[in-house]
């Protein structure tokens, strides 16, 4: 890859002038202008729904803009499709990978190339790119055996093979361990030093601070500011991003918890299908008033753990889930709720809520027993409606009313409604997965506060999240799940991020890594 550092008054690599794009009912991008210099790592910062993804989709030729102009090295550019974008030298790594699980790394890369190429020649190129950028990957491994971090490397290699002049990275770190993030940043810095511009989309502020040269901040489709992340604080950038003061969660540090409310012992779950993760001997306990976090990279058994706790799937015989001393491991979902354990799964649409149903009907789904919404085989529609109204009022859910369909709510509002529906049942134990995934900062703060308040009122709470920052700020204690195994519980105060990263699978993510990481952590403690 030829290094070409440009300087002086050379034209910008990419310049956007007054880009506007609207969808029915929303103005996704409103007169957006900014430019990216050669060799610059440029952050595109904004909350979910701020218009970041729409913008890069136009740059990559996936959808056309309504109006405005894009310039490439000072000349007007038109990208009718991604192929044209690639020809110009624009590469993109998507948040969701498009890989065939049953094929090898090399086969996947070959399928993504625009022109046919002999496989031996391609392999040589792939190996060269991997060596240049320190991307460790075996071209002949089957994708299904790879960790998420390794899969992302395939996408990066795929983009780099085109000698890009601009690389777009869409939320690349949301599925990586801290070590993998460090490694990715190394690669990106090397690329930038060789003159490749990088457009880096994220809402993780400390990452942007660590990596990027410039940040353009989007809010509701408009550019609201440009800053140098190196001199800003994460708080100041967050406030620009949400356009107001960031309310921090008020939480008392406490060490005196009550008795054990949730006691999970030797929980085992066999592999249910080829995409599920078996659980091995998961053991933990949570005390009254305690918020216990479970960290881990996606797909390491989090969903299975939530479903086995909620009663949707049954654990192997010999597993125990004790709520206040009563074993509910053999009970179904309804009986578990009656016993005092409520849950919120990660997927809102079609799992935590029925999209086509009204909010009132959605309360019947999980609150019918604890809130007496059914009687004698009949649904008490009026009671359900008033419970839905209560939830909407108490959790400031923005909606047209209790008869609005769940699908008509924005992600953050639906999540607030679902959390409210469970919290207002005052469960003894609440298990939530990704409570603030895809939720705007205001709603996230409200949800965090509600969890803290529920714990303060004497419930035991389990928070499963991929967002390490969230766990560190919210939880009292935490553990890490990797390939279906849960680490020992540790106190959040004084926790070592490096150690957590190793437990999350380090940089490799292969099945042996947990044992390896545990040994490393133990060795580190011995010193």
């Amino acid at each position, binding site marked *: 890859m030829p290094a070409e550092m440009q300087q002086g008054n050379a034209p910008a690599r990419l310049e956007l002038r007054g880009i506007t794009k609207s969808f029915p009912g929303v103005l996704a991008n409103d007169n957006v202008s900014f430019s990216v210099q050669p060799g610059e790592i440029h952050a595109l910062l904004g909350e979910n729904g701020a218009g970041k993804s729409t913008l890069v989709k136009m740059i990559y030729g996936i959808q056309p803009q309504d*109006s405005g102009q894009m310039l490439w090295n000072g000349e007007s550019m*038109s990208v009718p499709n991604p192929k044209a974008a690639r020809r110009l030298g624009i590469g993109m790594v998507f948040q969701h990978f498009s890989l065939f699980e049953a094929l090898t790394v090399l086969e996947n890369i070959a399928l993504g190339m625009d022109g046919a190429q002999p496989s031996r020649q391609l392999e040589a190129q792939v190996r060269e790119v991997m060596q240049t950028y320190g991307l460790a990957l075996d071209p002949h491994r089957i994708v299904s055996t790879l960790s998420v971090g390794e899969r992302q490397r395939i996408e990066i290699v795929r983009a780099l093979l085109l000698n890009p002049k601009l690389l777009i990275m869409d939320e690349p770190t949301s599925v990586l361990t801290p070590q993998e993030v460090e490694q990715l940043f190394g690669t990106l810095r090397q690329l930038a030093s060789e003159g490749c511009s990088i457009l880096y989309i994220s809402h993780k502020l400390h990452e942007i601070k660590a990596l990027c040269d410039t940040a353009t901040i989007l809010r509701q489709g408009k550019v609201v500011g440009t800053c140098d992340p190196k001199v800003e604080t994460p708080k100041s950038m967050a406030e620009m991003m949400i356009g107001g003061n960031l309310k921090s969660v008020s939480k008392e540090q406490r060490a005196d918890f009550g008795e054990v409310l949730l006691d999970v012992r030797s929980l085992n779950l066999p592999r249910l299908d080829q995409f599920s993760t078996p659980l091995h001997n998961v053991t933990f306990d949570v005390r009254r008033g305690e918020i216990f976090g479970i960290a881990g990279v996606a797909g390491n058994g989090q969903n299975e753990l939530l479903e086995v706790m909620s009663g949707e799937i049954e654990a192997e015989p010999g597993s125990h889930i004790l709520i206040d001393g009563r074993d509910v491991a053999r009970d179904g*979902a*309804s009986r578990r709720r009656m016993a005092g354990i409520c849950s919120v799964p990660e997927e809102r649409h079609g*799992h935590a809520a029925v999209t086509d*149903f009204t909010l009132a009907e959605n309360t019947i*789904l*999980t609150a*019918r027993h604890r809130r007496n919404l059914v009687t004698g*085989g009949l649904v008490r529609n009026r009671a359900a409606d008033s419970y839905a109204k209560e939830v909407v009022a108490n959790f400031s859910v923005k909606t047209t009313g209790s008869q609005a369909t769940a699908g008509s709510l924005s992600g953050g509002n639906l999540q607030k409604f679902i959390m409210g529906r469970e919290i207002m049942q005052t469960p003894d134990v609440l298990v939530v997965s990704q409570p603030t995934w895809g939720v705007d900062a205001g709603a996230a703060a409200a949800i965090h506060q509600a969890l803290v308040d529920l714990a303060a009122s004497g419930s035991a709470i389990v928070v499963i999240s991929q967002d390490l920052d969230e766990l560190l700020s919210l939880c009292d204690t935490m553990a890490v799940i990797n390939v279906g195994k849960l680490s020992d519980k540790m106190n959040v105060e004084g926790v070592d991020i490096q150690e957590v990263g190793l437990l999350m699978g380090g940089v490799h993510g292969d099945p042996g890594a947990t044992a390896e990481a545990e040994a490393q952590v133990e060795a580190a403690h011995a010193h």
Partner: protein
Amino acid sequence: MRIKLEKRAAPSRLMVVLTPIASVLLTMLLGVIIFDAMGIDGFRAVQDIFLTPILATYKIQDVLVKAAPLIIIALGLSVGNRANVWNIGAEGQYIIGALAGAGAAMAFGQTGGFFVIIVVIAAGIAGGMAWAAAPAFLRNRYGVNEILSSLMLTYVALQVLSYLIGGPWKDPNGRNFPQTAPLADGQVLPVYEIAGVPFHFGVVVALILPFLFWFLMSRSVLGFQIRVVGSAPHAARHGGFSQRQTVWLSMLIGGGAAGLAGVLELTGSLKAINLGFPSGYGFTAIIVAFLGRLHPIGVLIAGVVLAITYVGGQVAQTTVHIPNSTAGIFQAMMLFFILASDILVRYRIRIVGNKDAAQAAPAGE
């Protein structure tokens, strides 16, 4: 200019009601065009098929008798379809229901009366349920697709029917015709008459049952369960509703309704079972269920519309000399139109101007 489909923020309630009506109208329009092209008076044919049956008093009686089984079967099927359980074998369940009823009636000999009729009807329902239980069991236990198993069981039911009426159950006084002995007088459903239109008790059932199903689906926990499992199986599991139980329930309700329709047809109108007993109601009811938008009251209306096409087909056969199977073509057209126009419930059509032109123009400097 191009036509674009755009997702609606919420499903359109207006379209839910409008599209079935539009489907019927489009079917009539297309019918006129096709028959004219074939050299038959299309307007007359469509008029005979859709209008004569409801304008002539003596035809209304036929419409009601044909609508009753369609409505009853479709009510049961719409429950299953709401739960994403696809029972295609209502025809078989209808046949077995009638046979079970006939068997029960035979066991009573010449004894009749209220309680005998109740037992005969119960036997019919149980027969239909039993025939539907097989696909339910196979799906829950072995993951067998219920569309195939229920459909194939229809052909088994046809064989059972021809075996029974040609062998053990053949009418001893029937001049060797393959047919069961006619029911005793006391085993036949009562007949009522309003405004000169006679109708049997089965028609009354078909008029009451939709309201019962409406209540069941909208107010009961059972109805909620069926709707949740159909709309979001994952959420249903999260809410503690069993998928397997729902498959059982909806298959048994579908089979029971089809069996009920069969036994009412036997005790209300035909009084004996011969090879002509299976008349395709079980399949036509699938169209009724969809045309009625899987809503009990919609099913009631759609059942009448489909019955009209049946009766009208016979009218047109004598007046414009088109084959009786023409009614089948009209029914199929209606199903196609309703399925095709379904998209309008969730999407709207928009005609947009060409944006490429605007884009190609350079921005003002």
